[in-house]
């Protein structure tokens, strides 16, 4: 099954490549091809719309804030299931696209065990075994898979609530909310990690590329796989070069200072 999925994905990626473009500059690595990026943003847009319209109905304290965005309460209720459906359909494609790199490994379990070190920025660069996706990203992915299934199941039951027994709607209501809260928690962390927490990450989903520096810092095993170089060695080499550059610049500046001082003495 996985080979047919891979074949399907390969074809889809090639087709996307024919329309879109992946431009990689020197010192950069391609992280997400056009196909992945388009899917990501389809899922993201549908998710945000479903989230906002859903939270309008979620709580009386949000109803008046969020329903105007969608043209009032009745329209919010009308649109919400469609946003959800687009989200789920788009995510099915992303699911197939990422099924292979999202497979859980021992490295991910070890990553989760050092999550405290990760959140407090203890380590300068990630351990050598962290691959294309780290344990946290995989947890988020599988949480979306779980929530997506729950959303679809309970959502359909509530969409056609006048044909299913009342108690099913009452139970679905709670399950749908739990899935939403799980997703919201992941969503907040996801956006934070993708923007403010890790500069240089957001472009992976817009231009599709990241710098090599970014790659050896955050995903060393992936860096090794695509460049054939060891991440820590590359990091230490860059560190030495940086120190060398700094020394060169300092020497040049000292020289300039001396030059200017002698010039100043000549003025009067």
């Amino acid at each position, binding site marked *: 099954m996985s080979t047919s999925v891979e074949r399907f994905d390969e074809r889809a990626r090639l087709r996307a490549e024919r329309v879109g473009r992946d431009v990689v500059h020197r010192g950069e690595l391609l992280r997400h091809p056009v196909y992945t990026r388009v899917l990501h943003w389809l899922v993201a847009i549908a998710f945000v719309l479903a989230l906002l319209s859903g939270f309008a*109905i*979620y*709580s*009386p*304290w*949000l*109803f*008046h804030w969020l329903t105007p965005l969608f043209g009032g*309460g*009745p329209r*919010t*209720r*009308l649109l919400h299931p469609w946003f959800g459906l687009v989200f789920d359909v788009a995510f099915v494609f992303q699911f197939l696209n990422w099924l292979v790199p999202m497979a859980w490994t021992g490295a991910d379990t070890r990553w989760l065990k050092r999550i405290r070190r990760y*959140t*407090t*920025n203890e380590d*300068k*660069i990630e351990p050598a075994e962290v691959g294309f996706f780290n344990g946290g990203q995989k947890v988020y992915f599988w949480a979306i898979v779980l929530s997506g299934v729950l959303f679809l199941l309970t959502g359909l039951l*509530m969409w056609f*609530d*006048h044909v299913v027994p*009342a*108690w*099913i*709607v*009452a*139970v679905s*209501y*709670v399950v749908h*909310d739990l899935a939403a*809260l799980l997703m*919201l*928690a992941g969503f*907040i*962390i996801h956006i*934070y990690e993708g923007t*403010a*927490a*890790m*500069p*240089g990450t957001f472009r992976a989903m817009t231009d599709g590329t990241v*710098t090599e*520096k*970014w790659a*050896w*810092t*955050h995903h060393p095993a992936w860096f090794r796989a695509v460049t054939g170089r060891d991440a820590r060695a590359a*990091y230490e080499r*860059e*560190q030495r070069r*940086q*120190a060398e550059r*700094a020394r060169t610049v300092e020497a040049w500046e000292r020289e300039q200072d001396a030059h200017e001082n002698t010039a100043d003495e000549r003025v009067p």
Partner: protein
Amino acid sequence: MSNPQTFQIQEISAHPGPVPGAGTQRAEEVCKYIDVTTCIGCKACEVACVEWNDHPFRETTFDDTYQTMPSTEWNYWNLIKFAEDARDGNLMWLMRKDQCMHCEDPGCLRACPADGAIIKYENGIVDFQQDNCIGCGYCISGCPFDIPKFNEKTKKVYKCTLCSDRVGQGLEPACIKACPTGCLHFGTKSDMVQIAGLRAKQLREVSGFADAGVYDPPSIKGTHVIYTLHDINHPERYGLPKNPVIPASYTYWKWTAKPIGLLMAGLGLLAVFFHRVSVGPKLPQPEEPPLVSEHADPVEAKRKELP
């Protein structure tokens, strides 16, 4: 749908904040009292309801009973339910007028997510305001009596209004006016409870129905439609739940767990914001420009000093 200016509002669905003017004035609680023991199943109340509310007569489903249709519908709010009940080797034909019970603690109102779509008045009438209804159908699953019904065309939910438009003008509901046997009564809640109690006593002591009693379920703090039943121990024989309750989804979950979830989400946003401000970002290494000194990082030094 009633004009909310007719009565004093007591509760509003999904309303953030207090109800304007609540409790400033005490209104008598109204009540409909139905004596099922004197109902003859003539359906005059059904016709009166359809006429007064100007509902077109709808197609029905024949299911081998005298019942007009299987259940109440969005434009058929008043339905006599016929049940054939075996008792002491005999057949008892039970007829009960089914409609909105106008609960003191209405499950529909608890479940409703749309501000002002369901209003409960001080006099006990629970009324839907279709102008504010978003058509989600949560009220349908919140109702212990299966009363609110969805209209596919308008995408709104409808139910019996207890003729709030008539009651507001000092008239009794249309069904009451049409009843030929006098098994339907309308008045204040206290009066109706008293009359119903007297009738139940009479049934027990004179008519040989030892289990006769009044149906006014305390599990939802009572209703504004009450019944005297031949057998109060088995209300399900009349199609009434013995212990009607609002699903926990619309009580504990909605009004306790949901706000906590919302609070957690807010705290989560604050948490990531302050994480950025305090712990700072993860920059690609080595950082550019370089740290003041790789080996004399003041933050690192301080961290090592700590126990």
